[in-house]
């Protein structure tokens, strides 16, 4: 009798042009939190999809609780006790939150009628347990990414599982929500349930996981107890190089006071989300937006991109007042926006990597109405190399790329546009450590060319590392700005707390 819950041995999987998994052994013990680490495209999601019956393996065996299995679909995997939250959240936009939790296993009365009341009560409670109070009859498409993630979590927990698989569940969560998630994971562990947890954030791995398996290019490179491995070792195993090259520190302070101002926004208000925000950005400056979820970061970005209209306030670009009624107005003024909603707004799944990259900059490669295929490939290959996008070629449809690599393609699209000002909303969500540092360098080199950058990120360390200045938002107000020496994670947290306290006092008066 072993204490292994899951044994996958010699698993291989080949897609046209890629060997996604090559003879991988992967074991999970009972009641442990196990992490699967690897760069974008290393094969993590593929392994999970084989385990859950979405893909069929080319070879190898899977044993769960000592019994051989090879699930043909999600239902079979669920029946065997494997519950999964997939990387690309798979929920139904037009159904309510509650239905998304119960779809396919609704409680029914004798006549097959769904017991709606029960569903609503149960899902309200389940979400409340995770600290979320929300009307569960809202449609899924009307709620934010973080709550959607929690809905997926509740759905997964509702299935009576002995293994819960979570493929990058934290990528759209902020620190508080991650804490809630970790509480849930610890709870599962206490009940003897094993958890397979994937994340590109090393700090999370070291906080929650017991053991880690590392993949590189579809091959197993190692397995270790978390307490036996250091950050550096883990990274260098993942990327196959020394980790020195990618660990960078806080950005050196640059004096921007002599540089020209690119954009000034004054008193931007819109609905309840934004309440009179002032912001200015100089040429070549990287300004970060920090704040909790719902603090108005994305909303502000959308206003600056003309995707939402400000009810009040004025925006000047290069000293001239502009009216941004539509993204096209913003694009003409040299503004680009790399959205956090990768799947909904970003990729065109059935088009090639090359088409996806050059989509926004089509006019650059078009002469007299004809577009140059050669130029398109040139640009594409440049970014494939620069961002180390893992794809068999420029012509591969983007939907076949791994999640993180899709993200890189989107980023490349906006970079190819050569804008004056680029808004990056969570640009490195789901991107591995190695590529992150590549992107860091890229952002910096853009700034050096004089492009102004507005960076939104839930990871405060990243803001501190990359930005010249950080504006802190709290519930739609700017509660502070930090730069130079004063800029640190602690200072950002402190500013948020101060903003919160001020609000409380204001409310008490």
């Amino acid at each position, binding site marked *: 009798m072993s204490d292994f819950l899951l044994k996958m041995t010699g698993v291989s999987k080949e897609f046209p042009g890629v060997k996604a998994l090559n003879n991988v052994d992967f074991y999970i013990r009972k009641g442990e939190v196990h992490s699967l680490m690897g760069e974008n495209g290393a094969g993590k999601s593929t392994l999970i999809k084989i385990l859950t019956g979405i893909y069929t393996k080319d070879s190898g065996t899977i044993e769960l609780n000592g019994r051989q299995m090879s699930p043909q679909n999600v239902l079979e995997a669920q029946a065997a006790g494997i519950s999964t939250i997939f990387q690309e959240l798979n929920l139904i936009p037009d159904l309510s939150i509650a239905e998304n939790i119960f779809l396919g296993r*609704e409680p*029914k009365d004798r006549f097959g009628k769904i017991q709606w009341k029960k569903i609503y009560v149960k899902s309200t409670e389940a979400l409340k347990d995770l600290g979320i109070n929300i009307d569960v009859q809202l449609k899924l498409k*009307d709620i934010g990414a973080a709550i959607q993630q929690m809905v997926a979590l509740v759905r997964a927990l509702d299935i009576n599982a002995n293994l819960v698989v979570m493929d990058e569940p934290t990528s759209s969560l902020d620190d508080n929500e991650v804490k809630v998630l970790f509480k849930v994971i610890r709870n599962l562990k206490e009940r003897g349930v094993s958890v397979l947890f994937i994340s590109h954030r090393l700090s999370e791995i070291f906080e929650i996981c017991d053991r880690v398996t590392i993949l590189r290019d579809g091959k197993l490179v190692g397995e270790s107890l978390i307490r036996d491995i250091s950050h550096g070792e883990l990274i260098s195993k993942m990327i196959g190089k020394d980790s020195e090259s990618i660990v960078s520190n806080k950005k050196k302070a640059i004096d921007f006071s002599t540089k020209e101002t690119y954009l000034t926004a004054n008193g931007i208000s819109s609905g309840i989300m934004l309440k009179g925000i002032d912001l200015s950005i100089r040429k070549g400056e990287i300004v970060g937006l920090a704040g909790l979820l719902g603090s108005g970061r994305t909303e502000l970005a959308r206003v600056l991109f003309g995707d939402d209209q400000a009810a009040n306030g004025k925006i000047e670009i290069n000293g001239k007042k502009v009216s941004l009624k539509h993204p096209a107005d913003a694009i003409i003024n040299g503004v680009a926006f790399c959205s956090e909603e990768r799947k909904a707004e970003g990729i065109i799944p059935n088009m090639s990597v090359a088409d996806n990259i050059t989509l926004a900059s089509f006019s650059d490669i078009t002469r007299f109405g004809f577009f140059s295929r050669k130029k398109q490939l040139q640009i594409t290959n440049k970014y494939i190399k620069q961002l180390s996008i893992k794809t068999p070629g420029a012509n591969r449809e983007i939907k076949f790329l791994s999640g993180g690599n899709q993200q890189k393609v989107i980023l490349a699209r906006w970079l190819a546009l050569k804008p004056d000002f680029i808004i990056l909303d969570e640009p490195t969500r789901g991107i591995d450590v190695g590529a992150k540092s590549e992107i860091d360098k890229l952002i910096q080199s853009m700034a050096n060319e004089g492009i102004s950058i507005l960076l939104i990120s839930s990871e405060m360390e990243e803001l501190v590392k990359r930005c010249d200045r950080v504006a802190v938002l709290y519930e739609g107000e700017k509660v502070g700005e930090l730069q130079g020496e004063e800029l640190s994670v602690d200072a950002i947290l402190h500013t948020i707390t101060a903003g919160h306290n001020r609000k409380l006092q204001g409310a008490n008066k």
Partner: protein
Amino acid sequence: MKVLNRINSMEDKGVIAAFLVLFITATVMFEPFFSLLNIMNILRQVSMIGIVAIGMTFVILIKGIDLSVGALVAVSGVLSAYFAGRSMVLAILLPLLLGALLGAINGIIIARYRIVPFIATFAMMIGARGASYIATDTKSIAVPMTAKAYSKIGRGYAGLVPVPVIIFFLLLFIAYYILKNTSFGRKVYALGSNEEASLMMGIKVNRVKIAVYSISGLMCGAAGVILTSRLGAGQPVAGMGWEIQAIAATAIGGTLLSGGVGGVKGTFFGVLILGMITNMINLQGSLNSWWQGIITGVLLLIAIIVQAQEGRRIVSLS
């Protein structure tokens, strides 16, 4: 968020409003319009296309389309006529079975072989129509005068209400209940809203698809029986253009052609609107009946544009 919710639940408010406007206009403009007799008449006239449109609503909810409905009405109607003189039970059951079977074939071709619904059902439309011509030698098959009970299906009344109308309402109610309150119904919405996600949530997507196209076929079978009984003959040319009418009624009723949103309640009003337009043209007397096509086309366009606008508004608000 509350507001959003309300907008979403307004799905069929638009069509109900349009219906009311039309209804009042007709009442004011045409004396004979607002009478029990005329209204029953309208209901009876729309009942068969209405039944087909119920099936079409299921199909469109899963982001599909069924072009074969008119032809399926014809084949099953012809089959019904063959048996009408011999056995009433067979004259009802066999066409229903045939309709469901042909619908299931549509579904299997679409789900298993991943053929786009437009093409698969287009082929079925041509094939089934051809079959009904061959089976009848292009003539119509008369229902014997002796089949008294059988002819009640299309011509009878229960009190003041025509039998086809009763059948229509019954099916409408069942469909409404299934879509709203059963697991299968919710899967239909899920599938139309996001097929890939449905698959990953453990829904047997292919089964749902096949079931939905079978339902559409079944409805055609029912409409075929009623039509044959009403006309007193099974005609190979029956149901010509019904696919267009049924799609129009569904879309006007607020079911999104992009799937996942809508329902049979809207379709009911969509069908009524089409019926009232025909009726008003008849009452008016001097208008060419081709106007009906033009008006239907315009309404359809308006409905689709409104849908697109609402979709946009919801996206930008969220």
